[in-house]
């Protein structure tokens, strides 16, 4: 009898292993295109049209300025610098549905965030943190990557769904712990997009690496504020990815004609 029980146990283990292997092998046999569109696409964004996304962005912007009392920095020099960086990047964006607006928040936090519809908010603290216009371009290119890949909309839908689920299951207590950062794959995708955009705009993609190197050096001071860039993936892997990015053979970078020391003075 015991022998039969042991045999049955082995059979059941094989059965379970077989089922798992069946699904895994089945996934490997699927073409990458099908797999991506069925499983990894982040198709949530398709639920909202570009027009709706822009409307949503306008509403969030109104909320931030009117209700949340976000104060925007009014400084001609800073505005012209941001405009110069933005327009150089924007010219290289292929088939964009967005009319980008880059707004500088008068706050010393080292932070930046993107809302649906193409609005990117960068903090004064981030401008102070950057050592060059190229580093600022790297950060903006990354944020533009989130916009173009519609991560903001996907995140909104995912978190809205998750919040509802966890509110039902566990009450409101857990709601606030849902991360406000993008997930790792989104960050990687935005980094990749940023490197390609920087290359097209004739800005060395290594600007990303230099930004993160500075971040690594000053991580202790800025750790709490850098959620938007630091959470995923690890800084070192991003530095590595940026340094190993291969530009076209005839690539030549053209530095911005911006006196960054003057920018720093204007920010003080």
């Amino acid at each position, binding site marked *: *009898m*015991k022998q*039969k*029980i042991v045999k*049955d*146990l082995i*059979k*059941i283990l094989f*059965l*379970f292993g077989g*089922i*798992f292997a*069946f*699904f*895994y092998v*089945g*996934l*490997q046999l699927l073409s990458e295109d099908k*797999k991506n569109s069925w*499983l*990894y696409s982040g198709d949530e964004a398709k639920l909202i049209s570009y027009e709706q996304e822009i409307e949503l962005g306008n509403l969030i912007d109104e909320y931030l300025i009117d209700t949340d009392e976000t104060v925007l920095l009014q400084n001609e020099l800073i505005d012209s610098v941001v405009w110069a960086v933005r327009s150089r990047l924007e010219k290289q964006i292929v088939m964009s549905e967005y009319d980008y607006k880059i707004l500088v928040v008068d706050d010393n936090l080292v932070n930046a965030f993107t809302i649906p519809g193409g609005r990117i908010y960068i903090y004064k603290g981030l401008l102070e943190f950057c050592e060059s216009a190229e580093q600022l371009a790297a950060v903006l290119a990354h944020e533009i990557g989130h916009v173009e890949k519609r991560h903001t909309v996907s995140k909104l839908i*995912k978190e809205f769904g*998750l919040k509802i689920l*966890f509110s039902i*299951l566990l009450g409101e207590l857990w709601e606030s*712990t*849902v*991360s406000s*950062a993008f*997930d*790792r*794959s989104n960050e990687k995708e935005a980094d990749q997009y940023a490197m390609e955009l920087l290359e097209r705009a004739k800005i060395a993609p290594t600007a990303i690496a230099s930004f993160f190197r500075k971040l690594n050096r000053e991580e202790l001071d800025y750790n709490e504020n850098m959620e938007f860039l630091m*959470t*995923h993936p690890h800084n070192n892997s991003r530095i590595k990815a940026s340094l190993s990015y291969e530009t076209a053979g005839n690539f030549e970078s053209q530095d911005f004609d911006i006196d960054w020391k003057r920018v720093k003075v204007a920010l003080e």
Partner: protein
Amino acid sequence: MSIPYISLPQPEELTSREKEDAMGAYLMMLAAFAVSLPLPIINLIAAIIYFYINRKKSRYIHFHCLQSLLSQLPTTLINWGALYWALQIFFFENVEVNDYFYAYLGFMILANLIYFTFSIVAAIRARKGVFMYFIFFGSYAYNRVYSSKNILFYDNEEQPEITGQQLNKPPFE
């Protein structure tokens, strides 16, 4: 040396109550399982309570309660695994969604379907007074319940007479 087993009751020897309680072992756990799908712990607690309340009623009920309880352990563990993995991905964001995760989800869904199907069939057969043995769990439950080594006293069986000197006596007559 083989262990002697107690002969199995035939459908006509079983009372309606026994058949219903045996069927209830599967149906109650199925209901608890469905309710506790997002948090797969309630079904296990319900199963253990049902098992301890009913197991002494008769060997037939004990067998079905035990088979039902044991057979849901793998699916419960698999569901715990899926919940843990999903939380790590979507809530704590420590790991990424990958092919292993999707394969595991497929495996979990199929395992649950198998469990549900077998439990429903077993419940119908238990109601008719017919034994149905699940792979491994059926053999184990039979070995446990119908072996002569099983010393549990059942409500519907005569308890063996105590022979020899009675050392333990009630405090008063």
